[in-house]
């Protein structure tokens, strides 16, 4: 029976392997070392790799992320944890104006091989300020790369690619997935001896002919549940596409699918206005207008700041029944 590990452990394997491969790789963040990480994603790494490679920082996101960006200009490869991606708000200038633009403003003389990572999701009862989902914001800037793995296998394979990538990579995880188990091949089971998943290649998680459900991150799981319901209860065969990376974006896979199904819904846990789904919907109608039998639809977080109250927070985020209803409205 194939090996199953959690999303959390898959990330840790990626760190451990990359720390071993490249002495320039260093993990930094609040509580990532001695505390083993607020969500235990870096558990055991400090004990194994020590103070130089696994670094605890003060609560100074702008300071330590800017420091990592500066160090990356000298060839260090910092993998920096935001305990919550929500905290990018205090480091935003360093992230976008320095990591995101220094290459361009220097005429290509500089590049910043950094990874900024952490959970970017709502649904955990921590309120509006701790529930940011900034993938649309990050991806709106040329120069940035945005990765949102939906499962443990992708989390490992994409993290290894992120650490080796020579551009700034914004890597968005989910506290709701950290503890979930998935099949993840061990290195001896994969060709080349390690699991690497390239950026810009979407994954068709389920084939279908009647409708295309497109999503990233945890929303992919929600789509797969909805697809099962659609087939079982309504005989509708939905294709489910996991973007994996939002920038670079695998547009071809999306457009080919819609050309086949003629119907599309984008599902995301972010807010609707200028969300990732808005961009994808624009592209679909713009590129395969004549293939569409119905307008592109979206299912997003309900358009208000993240609410605390547990039962309401649950319905503020996309869930399968909403996707099914939306699908029935166009099928």
């Amino acid at each position, binding site marked *: 029976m194939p090996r199953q590990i959690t999303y959390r452990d898959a990330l840790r394997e990626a760190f451990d392997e990359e720390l071993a491969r490249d002495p320039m790789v260093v993990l930094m963040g609040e509580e990532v070392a001695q505390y083993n990480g607020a969500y235990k994603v870096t558990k055991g790494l400090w004990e194994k790799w020590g103070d130089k490679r696994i670094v605890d920082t003060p*609560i100074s996101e*702008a300071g330590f992320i800017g420091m990592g960006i500066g160090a990356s200009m000298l060839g260090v490869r910092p993998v920096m944890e935001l305990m919550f991606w929500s905290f990018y708000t205090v480091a935003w200038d360093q992230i976008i104006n320095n990591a995101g633009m220094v290459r361009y403003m220097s005429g290509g003389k500089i590049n910043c091989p950094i990874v900024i990572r952490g959970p970017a999701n709502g649904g955990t009862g921590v309120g509006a300020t701790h529930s940011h989902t900034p993938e649309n914001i990050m991806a709106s800037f040329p120069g940035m790369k945005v990765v949102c793995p939906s499962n443990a296998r992708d989390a490992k394979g994409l993290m290894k690619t992120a650490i080796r990538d020579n551009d700034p990579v914004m890597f968005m995880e989910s506290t709701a997935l950290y503890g979930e188990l998935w099949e993840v091949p061990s290195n001896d089971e994969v060709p080349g001896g390690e699991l690497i998943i390239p950026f810009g290649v979407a994954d068709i998680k389920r084939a279908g002919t009647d409708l295309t459900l497109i999503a990233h991150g945890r929303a992919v799981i929600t789509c797969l549940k909805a697809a099962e319901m659609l087939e079982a209860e309504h005989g509708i065969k939905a294709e489910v596409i996991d973007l994996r990376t939002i920038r670079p974006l695998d547009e071809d896979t999306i457009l080919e699918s819609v050309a086949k199904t003629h119907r599309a819904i984008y599902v995301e846990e972010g807010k609707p206005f200028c969300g990732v789904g808005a961009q994808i919907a624009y592209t679909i109608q713009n590129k395969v207008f004549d293939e569409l039998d119905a307008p592109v639809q979206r299912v997003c977080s*309900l*358009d208000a700041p993240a609410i*605390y109250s547990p039962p309401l927070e649950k319905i503020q985020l996309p869930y399968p029944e909403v996707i099914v209803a939306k699908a029935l409205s166009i099928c």
Partner: protein
Amino acid sequence: MATAIAPSAKHADAPINQKLTPQDKLDLHRQMVRIRAFEQLSLQHYVGNKMAGFLHLYIGQESVAVGTISLLGKNDHVITAYRDHGHALAVGMSMNECMAELFGKATGCSKGKGGSMHYFAPDKNYWGGHGIVAGQTPLGLGLAYGLKYKGLKGAALCFLGDGAVNQGTFHESLNLAALFNLPVVYIIENNGYSMGTSQERSSAFKSCLAERASGYDIEWELFSGEDIYEVRARTQVAIERAHNESRPTVLEIATYRWLGHSVADSSHSGGYRTKEEIERHQAEHDPVEVWKRNLLAEGIATEAELKKIDKEAFTEAEESAEFAKNSPYPEPESIFEDVYWEVDNKTDSGRSGRHFFND
């Protein structure tokens, strides 16, 4: 942390403490035990899965919120971080609205929309309850700015942790406070740790964290928070500086958190502090016990009378949990309320154009 401090001197005869009636002194005790009882109950129900998210408990630090806030008058304001239950009860919020908020109920102080980290009571000059570390420090400055702008004689007490001093906004706030002569009092509740990181591992300093204020020519003081008499005596100086000179102060008050950073940390993960250290603080520096000793020594109350206060507090807490349990959750429609003032108040502006984009 408290251990770094000499045992607090006797400040009972400071004028501000001389003013205290026996009843006042009993009330101070009552407030501390109410906070402790409230949090013990909330912990029970958190473990019982009655709430989500984080629960940052204040147990061990009660004397700081109770002592400082007991000095405030009608134009004095309070703002703090996410460890906000103690301050909320100290400003006079009810256990019911606070407990119901934890349960995510419509009867909560924030209608169940904010949760543990986001208590608010503007009617009691209490401005939260903020989750982003040090994010409240410019807001506290703004409260002081507002007081001065309106020509009111008041002070804004802005609480922050020992880990929060390393956020840039705090320093920008100090410069502005000194430059604009604003009546703000920053109170660093130094419990020795930011999550699992000791002060030594998070902050560079000379004699202490508050000393950073001197670079902005701001008055500062470091003292132990275990004895309410001392907390009141020393904090009063800063409040008078705010009231009479409209000048800021930075106070660093040594205290100690008994429980984990949040309940998730109940095991003090990674052994960042020892069982012995915790037990020593509980045995020797419990602010409730210290105050109790004062009351008994002064003959203000008997053991029995104090036990009665404990019992009442516990009963009140249990009733607040009942209240929370029996309260309704907010209605789904309420998700779209409290986003825009103009929409909530059905003004022309609130009716003009589309504000929400659900489809």
